[in-house]
């Protein structure tokens, strides 16, 4: 395999909230075209890390580089090439779905917005939702709209914080297929968190485990399953989290 370009480089990244260290000197890279699962138990530091990547939380120390650039110096340029989605972030409920998509499209300076929205709506099967009020959507529908928003600027890097939480198995499956498809067709790099190990095994090229703010292991799902001598990633997760006591 040829050596790929690092899209995200994190070195000794640390976040302290008062006396509590939420993220503790972590270092990892994500390479162009990879789908990387960022895994760990509740409170491990996943969301905090992703928010530091997006400049929503200021790191206490350490370095973040995206596309080889420093977030402090090239914030707008980096954010233009990135997008984010989380089941826990919403869009204005008193706007119609298409109005929301159009607004975010403009914030990202997307050309040919109409066409783009139509494509995404086809893709996520939300065409009939476009004229609806965003506030009236079911949580799974809202998640699909959020994902459409996350692709509005054709991002090179997607940061997803539990994107499939609250999706029904059918839509969750379609979302996974979709992530694989945009990876293949557009070479999009994805870093995402999920508590669904089956899903992670299905689509991730590589996983990074974090526990109590520290990175405990990294590798392909297959490598880790073999290394820990388990039958699947779920058991690997339990072993890593419980410190091998199960």
């Amino acid at each position, binding site marked *: 395999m040829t050596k790929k370009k690092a899209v995200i480089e994190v070195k000794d990244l640390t976040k302290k909230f008062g006396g509590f260290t939420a993220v503790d000197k972590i270092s990892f890279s994500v390479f162009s075209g990879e789908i990387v699962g960022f895994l760990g138990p509740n409170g491990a530091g996943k969301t905090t890390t992703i*928010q530091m990547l997006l400049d929503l939380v200021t790191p206490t120390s350490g370095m973040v580089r995206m596309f080889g650039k420093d977030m402090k110096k090239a914030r707008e340029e980096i954010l233009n090439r990135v997008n984010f989605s989380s089941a826990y972030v919403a869009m204005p409920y008193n706007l119609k779905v298409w109005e929301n998509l159009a607004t975010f499209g403009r914030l990202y*300076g997307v050309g040919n917005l109409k066409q783009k929205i139509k494509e995404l709506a086809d893709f996520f099967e939300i065409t009939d939702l476009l004229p609806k009020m965003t506030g009236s959507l079911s949580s799974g529908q809202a998640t699909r709209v959020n994902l459409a928003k996350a692709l509005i600027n054709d991002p090179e890097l997607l940061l997803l914080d539990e994107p499939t939480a609250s999706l029904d198995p059918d839509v969750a499956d379609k979302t996974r297929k979709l992530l694989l498809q945009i990876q293949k067709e557009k070479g999009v790099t994805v870093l995402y968190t999920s508590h669904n190990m089956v899903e992670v095994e299905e689509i991730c090229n590589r996983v990074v485990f974090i526990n109590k703010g520290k990175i405990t292991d990294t590798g392909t799902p297959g490598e880790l399953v073999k290394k820990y001598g388990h039958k699947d990633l779920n058991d690997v997760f339990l072993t890593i989290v419980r410190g091998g006591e199960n």
Partner: protein
Amino acid sequence: MDIFFWPVTELLVWGFLSRYLEGTGLGGVNVVTVLLGALIFWDLLSQSQRAVSVVFLEEVWERNLLNIFVTPLKISEFLVSTVLIGLARIMLVGVVITIMAFFLYQFNIFQLGFALIPFVVNLLLFGWAIGLFATAIILRFGSAAQVLAFGLTFLLQPFSAVFYPVSALPQMAQYIAYLLPSTHVFEGMRQVINTGVFSWQQLGWTIIANVVFISLILWFFYSMFANVKEQGRLMKLD
């Protein structure tokens, strides 16, 4: 707290007003002009303030802040957009109020003369700055602080000499009054109405006070924003 907010401030305002009216013997034809002019001007200020704070509060309520702050939009651009939205709302309210005042009280705001425009512009800017101040507080404390978004200007009203001259205020309050750009706007406005002379001096004080206020509040906003990112509270605002 907020249930006392309106009654108390209203009481203060109208109390000082009656003292002023007693002193003047209630004679002049200018009373209506002064009061309605003041009322409309004050409304512009509080609309300007509210527009900014409410735009921001809506983003908090809608849990949309993260979506906005992960776009390439700069904070400064976000702030400029709140000014523009504020202006649009003020146009609407201003038009309605002006028309109502004309038909209900035969009060024509344009009789005050276009010389008042620089005062109005400063008033809007000051309203925007107070709105930004409320926004910074909401950013820091969440929508629990939202009463500020709706009523902050009312705290300033008694000190701004809106309906009565500064001289009607107690000595201590006068010191505060002179620090506020709004006070100089209303003093200047009364002077135009009463004497027909445009007060460059009041306009000068208005601008100086405004520059100082806006700089301080911008600094406050940016440091609150940095603080909130530091504390990881941006994602937890509610």
